[in-house]
C-alpha cells in the first residue's frame, strides 16, 4: 500500500468501509460531515448501505436496528449530535450489541462552535447514557491512528459485544496528513447466532434492554459489570514517550497529546527530563501505569482542550502520590506549545522547591 494525503474525516470513513463496514447511518454536523459525504458515494459504489437520517436520534436508532442483525455498522457525529444519540447508546449498551460511534468533539456547551475541543470527555467516558455502563473510548492523535483505530474499534465491539466510541476532535477530523489505508475487506457473510434475522428453523431471537424483574435486571447488570472488568483488565492502551528517566510527566490525549510531544522535546533540549503519557483508551483509563509513574516523577501536568475533565481521572489514578497541575484552553482554542511550556516550567519550579 502507499501513503496518501488524507483528511481525517475522509480517512476514518474510508478505513471503516475497508474494514468491512456494512451500513452507515448519519446526520450532517460540522466538523465531521465529510465522513458522511464520503460514505454517501463510496458505500453505494461497494453495494453497501448508506442512509442520511432525519436526525441524530433517527441515525442512532437505525444503527441500533442494523446492529441487532449482527452487521458491522456505525455512525459519526459531533458534540450536539452525540448528546441526542445518548438515548440510543444506552439502549445499545443495555442490549449488548456491537456498535461503533465516532465523535469529533467541538466547542460547547450548547451550540458552542465548530472548533476543536475535548469537552465531551465526561460525556463519552462516564455519562454516555442513562444507567450503569461504560463504552470503550479510543482516542486517536493523528490521521493514521484514527484509520488504525477503526479496525480496532470494530474488533473490540464484536469481541465484547459492546459499544466502542472514538473520541476525536475537530482538528483530527479536519487536518490532512499522509497516511496509509488498510486493504479492502468484504462485508462478513455470516451473522452471529444471537442476531435478529428471521426465526427460520430456529427459536425466535429477542434483543431487548427491558427486564421488569429487578432480580433479573440486577443479574444482567452484574454480568455487564463483569464484562467491563475484563475490558478494564485487558484493553488499556497508551503511548509513552521518554518516560524511563522522566522527572516530570505530561499527560494529554488526541491533538493535545501531539502538541505535548513538541513541548516535551523542547524541554528535553533545555535539559529538563520530561516524559509524556498519551492515553489511547480513555476508558479503560491507564490508571495503573499512571500510579507507577506517580512514584517516579516530581509532578504531572495534564493538558486538555477542556476545563479539566481527564484531569479528574489522572488525580484519581495517582491518589495524591504526586502533585498534579492542569493547563487547559476552552471554547475551541487549541493550546500553543509555548503556553504549555510555560505551564510546565511553573510545575518544574514549584516541584523543585518542594523537594
Amino acid at each position, binding site marked *: 500500500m502507499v501513503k496518501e494525503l488524507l483528511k481525517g474525516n475522509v480517512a476514518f470513513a474510508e478505513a471503516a468501509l475497508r474494514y468491512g463496514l*456494512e*451500513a452507515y*447511518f448519519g446526520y450532517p454536523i460540522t466538523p465531521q460531515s465529510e465522513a458522511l459525504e464520503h460514505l454517501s458515494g463510496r458505500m453505494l459504489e461497494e453495494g453497501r*448501505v448508506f*442512509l442520511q*437520517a*432525519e*436526525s441524530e*436520534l*433517527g*441515525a442512532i*436508532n*437505525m*444503527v*441500533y*436496528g*442494523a*446492529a*441487532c*442483525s449482527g*452487521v458491522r*455498522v456505525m455512525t459519526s457525529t459531533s458534540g450536539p449530535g452525540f448528546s441526542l444519540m445518548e*438515548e*440510543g447508546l444506552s*439502549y445499545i449498551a443495555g*442490549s449488548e450489541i456491537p456498535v461503533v460511534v465516532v465523535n469529533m468533539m467541538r466547542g460547547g456547551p450548547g451550540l458552542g462552535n465548530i472548533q476543536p475541543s475535548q469537552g465531551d470527555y465526561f460525556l463519552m467516558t462516564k455519562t454516555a447514557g442513562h444507567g450503569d455502563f461504560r463504552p470503550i473510548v479510543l482516542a486517536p492523535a493523528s490521521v493514521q491512528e484514527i484509520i488504525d483505530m477503526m479496525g480496532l474499534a470494530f474488533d473490540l465491539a464484536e469481541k465484547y459485544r459492546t459499544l466502542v466510541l472514538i473520541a476525536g476532535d475537530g482538528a483530527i477530523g479536519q487536518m490532512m496528513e499522509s497516511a496509509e489505508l488498510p486493504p479492502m475487506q468484504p462485508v462478513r457473510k455470516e451473522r452471529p447466532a444471537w442476531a*435478529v*434475522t*428471521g*426465526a*427460520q*428453523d430456529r427459536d*425466535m*431471537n*429477542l*434483543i*431487548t*434492554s*427491558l427486564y421488569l424483574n429487578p432480580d433479573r435486571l440486577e443479574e444482567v447488570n452484574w454480568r455487564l459489570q463483569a464484562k467491563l472488568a475484563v475490558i478494564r483488565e485487558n484493553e488499556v492502551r497508551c503511548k509513552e514517550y521518554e518516560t524511563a528517566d522522566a522527572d516530570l510527566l505530561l499527560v494529554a490525549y488526541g491533538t493535545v497529546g501531539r502538541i505535548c510531544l513538541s513541548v516535551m522535546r523542547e524541554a528535553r533540549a533545555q535539559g529538563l527530563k520530561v516524559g509524556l503519557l498519551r492515553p489511547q483508551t480513555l476508558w479503560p483509563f491507564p490508571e495503573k501505569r499512571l500510579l507507577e509513574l506517580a512514584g517516579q516523577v516530581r509532578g504531572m501536568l495534564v493538558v486538555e482542550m477542556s476545563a479539566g475533565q481527564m484531569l479528574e481521572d489522572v488525580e484519581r489514578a495517582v491518589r495524591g502520590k504526586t502533585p498534579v497541575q492542569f493547563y487547559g484552553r476552552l471554547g475551541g482554542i487549541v493550546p500553543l506549545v509555548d503556553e504549555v511550556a510555560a505551564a510546565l516550567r511553573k510545575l518544574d519550579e514549584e516541584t523543585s522547591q518542594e523537594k
Partner: protein
Amino acid sequence: MNTQTNIPEDMELVYGFPEALTEVSTHYCPGCTHGVVHRLVAEVIDELGIRGTTIGVAPVGCAVLAYNYFNVDFVEAAHGRAPAMATGLKRVNPDKVVFTYQGDGDLAAIGTAEIIHAATRGELITTVFINNAIYGMTGGQMAPTTLPGMITTSTPTGRDPILAGYPVKMTELLAQIAGSAYITRQMAADVPSILKAKRAIKRAFLTQMHGLGFACVEVLSTCPTNWNMDPWKAMEWVKETLAPAYPLGDYKMTDEVKALEVR
C-alpha cells in the same frame, strides 16, 4: 396456523392457534384489543408463510412486551424510535419482512419525526398503529390523540385544546406523504370491523413484500381500564365516539396496492 395438530383425514383444520403467537397469557387488561390485534397480525404472518422471515419491532407503551406473545424474531425499541430501528433492520435485511407495532403516544407524540420520515423515504416496512386516545401503561394520561373534553389523569377537567392542543390525525398526515403506499384507518370494535382490520393488515404486509412503499394500519382500540368503562361499553365507545372523530377508511392506496389480491 399450527399444522402440528392431529386432524382426522376426513376433516379440515379451519381454526387453530396461530404459529406466530406464543402460547402464553398476555398481560393486557380485560377488554383491551391489543390481544385481538396481536392475533390478527399473527394470523396474517401465518397465512403469508413469513414467520421465519419476519422481524418485529416492539414499542414503549402497553405493547412493550409484545415480543413475549409473537413467535418471531423481535427487538425492543426506545419510545417512538421503532420506525428508525425498523429502517436499520430493513436496510440490512431487504429480503426480510419488518413491522413495527406502536401505540398513539409512541407514534403520534414522541416518535412523530421517526414515523413521518420513514414514510417519506417510502421505507419498506409495515406499521400497525394502535390508537386508543390515551396513555395506557403510564396510567391514563392525555395522548396526542385524546379527544377534546376527554378526561384523563393529566387533563382532569377534560382536554382543553387552548391549553393542551388538538388531537393529531396521523393517518390523514401520513396519507399526504409521497412515500406512503397504503395508509388506512380501521377499528377493532366488533366482528365485522375486526375481520376488515385483518384484511387491511394483510394488505399492508403484502405492500411491503411487493416493494410498493410504506404501509400503516391505524386501528382504533379500547382502553377500558383508563377510560373507566367495562369492556362492552368501551367497544361501544369506539364505535360511537372515537370512530366519528377518526373516520375509518383507506386514506391512501396506490394503484399497485389496490391491485394486490387479499384473501
